[in-house]
């Protein structure tokens, strides 16, 4: 920390950071405790992790959660990228604004509203609640963020590249796959990544649209937490925390790599111009 901060300011920041991290660290620490509650550390053990790995129901739920996250992100990325391309090619200003406003509705709506309205929607369609309804909901609420992350990359792209491709005889499909998609790939990757985090993070919407037979980790933790503390959940939390950290690190390096590539490209272009 810089020395121009006074002692009080430093103390304030330190307290804020302690409050932000203490609960998470407690959670991880007690996953190694021999006791049954989150007080008085009773000695080190891996027992809770062993219970965790021998709990077939929980392992099934972890797998289901991952499948929903990856599948929904894949579909959301495809539809969202198509949406961004559509918006990009829409020249009419008012239409463009309307589409973008509609796009953002799900991003600002409270989860309870999204969950309740999707529940009405699926029930009216006569869809049985379960895997499909959860998957569809996750696809639906991940699409807007993909659009918002891909669109800036399209706007940054040099539009004359598309004209050049057309002049050189590329058909629209070739232009898309050889010119446009490679140029916006970083945005597509960020979109996919954010969709995965949205899906893993969601509790409220899933809680509304999941039936009796299907559960994701958040919903499972909710129902177990209502019965009180169970250190098996601590062990699960610690693992999940680790996965979140890896995801963030991955995202961070992806961004760094993109930044690096951008400056490198620019340097190359500048070298050519000179």
């Amino acid at each position, binding site marked *: 920390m810089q020395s121009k901060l006074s002692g009080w300011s430093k103390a304030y920041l330190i307290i804020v950071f302690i409050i932000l991290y203490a609960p*998470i660290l407690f*959670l991880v620490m007690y996953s190694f405790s021999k006791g049954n509650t989150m*007080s008085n550390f009773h000695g080190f053990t891996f027992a809770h992790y062993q219970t965790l790995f021998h709990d077939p129901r929980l392992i099934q739920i972890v797998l289901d959660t991952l499948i929903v996250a990856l599948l929904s992100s894949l579909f959301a990325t*495809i539809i969202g990228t198509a949406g961004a391309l559509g918006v990009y090619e829409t020249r009419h200003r008012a239409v463009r604004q309307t589409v973008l406003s509609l796009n953002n509705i799900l991003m*600002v709506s409270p989860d309870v*509203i999204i969950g309740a309205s999707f529940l009405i*929607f699926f029930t009216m369609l006569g869809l049985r609640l379960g895997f499909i309804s959860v998957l569809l909901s996750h696809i*639906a609420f991940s*699409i807007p963020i993909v659009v918002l992350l891909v669109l800036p990359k399209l706007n940054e792209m040099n539009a004359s590249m598309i004209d050049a491709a057309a002049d050189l005889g590329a058909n629209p499909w070739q232009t898309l796959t050889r010119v446009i998609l490679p140029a916006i790939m970083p945005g597509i990757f960020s979109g996919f990544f954010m969709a995965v985090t949205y899906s893993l993070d969601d*509790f409220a919407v899933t809680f509304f649209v999941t039936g009796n037979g299907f559960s994701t980790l958040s919903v499972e933790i909710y129902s177990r937490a209502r019965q009180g503390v169970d250190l098996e959940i601590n062990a699960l939390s610690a693992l999940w925390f680790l996965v979140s950290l890896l995801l963030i690190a991955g995202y961070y390096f992806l961004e760094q790599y993109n930044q690096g590539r951008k400056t490198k490209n620019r340097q190359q272009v500048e070298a050519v111009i000179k």
Partner: protein
Amino acid sequence: MKQGKLFYYIPYGLWIALFVIAPVVLIVYQSFFNIAGHFTLSNYATYFHSGVYLKMTFNSVWYAFLITAITLLISYPTAYLLNQLKHKQLWLLLIILPTWINLLLKTYAFIGLLSRSGSVDSFLTFIGIGPKQLLFTDASFLFVATYIEIPFMILPIYNAIAELSPSYVNASRDLGASGWQTFSRVIFPLTLDGVKSGVQSVFIPSLSLFMITRLIGGNRVITLGTAIEQHFLVTQNWGMGSTIGVILIVAMVITMLLTGERKKKGRTRHAK
């Protein structure tokens, strides 16, 4: 490229129609039906005439206001001080990091910390205050809700302060303004946009909290979100649930109008 555009809009337009427009229409439509499935205005009549729902709405708004105010009081100095640090991007990342951790896990951690024979309780006993009922109180609900919302308030304020040109602050000092005057006349007004978008991204989710109210607050505080969840999943009175949903949407629109056009910047994830 005309054909290309249509091709792109087929999946995306379908999504807008089915998952954006249809649900909003359906929730409004459903609010006009009573539990027996008859078209009626009685849900709205019940809402406005029974004191219970109005009191609940008032309570919900009051708690959301408290959460927002406490969050703002803690976040503004934090955002300001963070901007003074070396490696401030790294520190900001550390503030955002907890938002990536599932909300349920954080809530669960607090159950362990605050419950009887939990760590905080043991600590209070240790320093001589004695065991206290911590979980299922209004204070614990406020504390946990604030904890979860803090990063969402810090982020926009931090960005606003980072954009503030230091020459304004220097000019104000040179012209003889005191520290407080510089803050209240220069820094705060120039970063008001950040505060507004922070308030927006904390107040709306606070109105619709429903899981924390049960796990931490013991359903002592019923927010609009809790009421919707109860009507949909417990009492199965979807009509009334939708009516409260419509009220929540109206409250959301009012909040957004009051806090102005929100700049779409960075992450807009909410603690829900």
